[in-house]
């Protein structure tokens, strides 16, 4: 047990912060958010090919650096501070763990090496129209067609899908003549090219401009048997572990956003003078900032623990840690970002100020891969309080 960063981890953090401070200042973030795919392709190239960020948690045998989720979470945390729009989360933190958990050896060799080298961007298509994060409610189906499959349906809130090279689609298997049970459907993940016939992808404009999303429709898409990740068996357990790992990274990213938001407003209240004194000298301001700091520090403790769990723990323990972290860090980021708007006063309510970008990112992140309330219900089930809803499948 060692609950502090190693020297190597501190070095990764420092170099990431230095790089992002120089390359991802807020005006740049605003500018790239307005481009067609919503991120800076040149910066992405630097991140993947020069800095090796996409390789960090991929095993060495697939060309990665062989580190783990703590290091990945450190990079996400630093990007979260800057609200950096990038395919990093979708490709490295979401798709790569899914491939790692479910892929066959040749799939891992092909895709993980390409992700590590920066030549492949991938996205995970999971949520239905309502944005539900439970695997049991996916809105895509697979039906057999000889030895192969046909994919139909749709997915929404697909992160960084617009110029992805590969879509990983979560779909329920519909066997002809077999009545499907709603509670425990059999699920597969299939790899589909966004350019395949029958795939229609539409970017959706979001309140949070820093994380582009798309809706994807699948109209009788032909899927070859070898495009199935893993074997023809239910993928729920492996998929759930990968999703929990992604939730952990997303939590660390939220902590980064909250941390920066607090730093910025703290600097502001030291400068802003009213009634002849810096407003940061008033207890009404101090106490709100102190409360924000309590939330940020609590979220950090939770997130770094969960990052360790993503590497070290059993599926069940990770599920608990991931849901606790997702709920805790999302709530913290929401509250801290909201507090920052209030303490900035009028300027914090303007479009040109950065406060609303953090506020909107906080809200969007808290809705991604399960809301705080959804995760608390999952924790309640994990604590042995029994199940109250057959509609939720964790």
């Amino acid at each position, binding site marked *: *047990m*060692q*609950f*502090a*960063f*190693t020297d190597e*981890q501190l070095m990764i953090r420092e170099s990431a912060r230095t790089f992002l401070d120089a390359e991802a200042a807020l005006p740049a973030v605003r500018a790239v958010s307005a481009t067609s795919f919503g991120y800076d392709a040149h910066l992405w190239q630097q991140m993947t090919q020069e800095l090796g960020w996409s390789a960090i948690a991929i095993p060495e045998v697939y060309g990665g650096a062989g580190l783990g989720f*703590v290091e990945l979470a450190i990079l996400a945390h630093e990007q979260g501070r800057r609200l950096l729009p990038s395919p990093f989360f979708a490709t490295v933190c979401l798709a790569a763990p899914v491939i790692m958990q479910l892929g066959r050896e040749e799939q891992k060799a092909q895709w993980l090496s390409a992700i590590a080298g920066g030549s492949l961007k991938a996205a995970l298509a999971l949520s239905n129209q309502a944005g539900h994060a439970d695997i049991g409610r996916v809105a895509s189906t697979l039906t057999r067609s000889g030895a192969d499959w046909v994919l139909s349906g749709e997915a929404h809130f697909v992160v960084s899908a617009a110029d992805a090279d590969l879509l990983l689609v979560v779909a329920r298997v519909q066997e002809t003549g077999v009545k499907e049970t709603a509670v425990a459907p059999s699920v597969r993940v299939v790899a589909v090219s966004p350019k395949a016939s029958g795939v229609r992808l539409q970017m959706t404009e979001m309140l949070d401009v820093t994380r582009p999303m798309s809706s994807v429709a699948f109209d009788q898409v032909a899927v070859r048997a070898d495009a199935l990740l893993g074997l023809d068996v239910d993928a729920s357990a492996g998929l759930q572990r990968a999703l929990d790992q992604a939730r952990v990274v997303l939590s660390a990213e939220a902590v980064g956003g909250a941390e920066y938001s607090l730093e910025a407003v*703290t600097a502001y*209240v*030291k400068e802003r003078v009213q009634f002849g*004194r*810096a407003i*940061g*000298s008033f*207890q009404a*301001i*101090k*106490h709100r*900032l*102190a*409360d924000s*700091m*309590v939330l940020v*520090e*609590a979220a*950090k*403790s*939770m997130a*770094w*623990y969960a*990052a*360790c*769990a993503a590497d*070290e*723990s059993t599926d069940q323990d990770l599920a608990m*840690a991931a849901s*606790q972290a997702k*709920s*805790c860090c999302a709530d913290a980021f929401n509250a801290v970002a909201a507090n920052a708007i209030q303490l900035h006063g009028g300027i914090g309510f303007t479009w040109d100020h950065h406060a609303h970008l953090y506020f909107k990112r906080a809200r969007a992140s808290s809705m991604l891969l399960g809301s705080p*309330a959804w*995760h*608390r*219900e999952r*924790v*309640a089930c994990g*604590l*042995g*309080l*029994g199940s*109250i809803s057959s509609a939720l499948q964790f």
Partner: protein
Amino acid sequence: MKIGFTPAQEQFRHEVATWLTEQLAGPYADLRGVSSHTAMVERRRVWEAELGRARLSSVGWPVEWGGRGASLAEQVIFAEEYARAKAPARLNHLGVELLAPTLLTYGTEAQKQRFLEPILMGKEIWCQGYSEPNAGSDLANVATRARLESGPNGDEWVIDGQKIWTSLAAFSDWIFVLCRTEEGSRGNRGLSYLLVPMNQPGITVRPIREMTGHAEFNETFFTGARTAAANIVGAPGEGWKVAMATLAFERGVSTLAQQMDFTNEFDTLVAAAQANGQALDPVIRQRIAEASIGLAVMRYSALRMLTNAESGALSHEAYTYRLYWGVWRKKLGELAMDVLGPAGEYAHSDVPAIHDLQHMFLFSRSDTIYGGTSQIQRNQIAERALGLPKEPRGI
């Protein structure tokens, strides 16, 4: 960064768990689950001695003083196993967790020789004399005075004044006292940190009945109370520095033991919710889940804090920890009462869970007051951790 334990650490866990199980199933079965700080005092002195003989009274102390020089991970393990075994609350926790580390840092060799062993063996129970009626949040406003006098017993400190909120004073043998030793000094200057025997005519203890109905705290009156001139920790006038060090130890390993108590309270609450059906109420479930998140946060904040403390600096999470747990426990108390429903309103329930949760609910109202109110905590976080301008002081 890692959360798992090594095989050697797991071996230590096994040793501790086995020893505790044997004791609490055998000779000390009567003490299993005793959580009150004021019950069964004589039996718990014997238990403290048993822990001391097994070198388990304070595993983190250096080996030469009767500890095991245990690493942080081992201290975490000890706290976890102690709680899991439902071993009784530590009678001498102020001696073991606050005074002893203070003496190890600031005490003279003679003081260590004189005081550490009796602490370890439960022979001398300690209490803390900091707060006064006019020195609560503003602790530096201490008015209790001490002066050096020569007499038949050699030079002695003679102490006059009043301390308040002294827990355990009714049966403590010694008290560490913050008092003013420089005539006319103000604020945190001119204070000294004295060690004073409780069993003397110059000291009177009067219990304070709190809103719980119990009397866990006391007023302690000093009227010409005496202690040997050598019983001062640090130099005369440097008491504030020593007292602050003691407060820092309060943020130390003792937080682990405290968290284990919180975990037991949480488990009691969950069991109560399962027993009366509230566990199926969607809102209650959300709140129970939230409480469990708080437990995890405290556990890992404490580990961050203790790990960082090894490097000396008081880190950010250390500033926020005190406020976090006070607010958390108060919410836990409110949740407990919502779970219990009207049955929680009986003044004398014979259901142990109801009695315990009700007491926790009432007692938790003090968790955001003692040791510095939440308002003071927020000022400190804002000024010391966030660097906001200091509050102007009145005259």
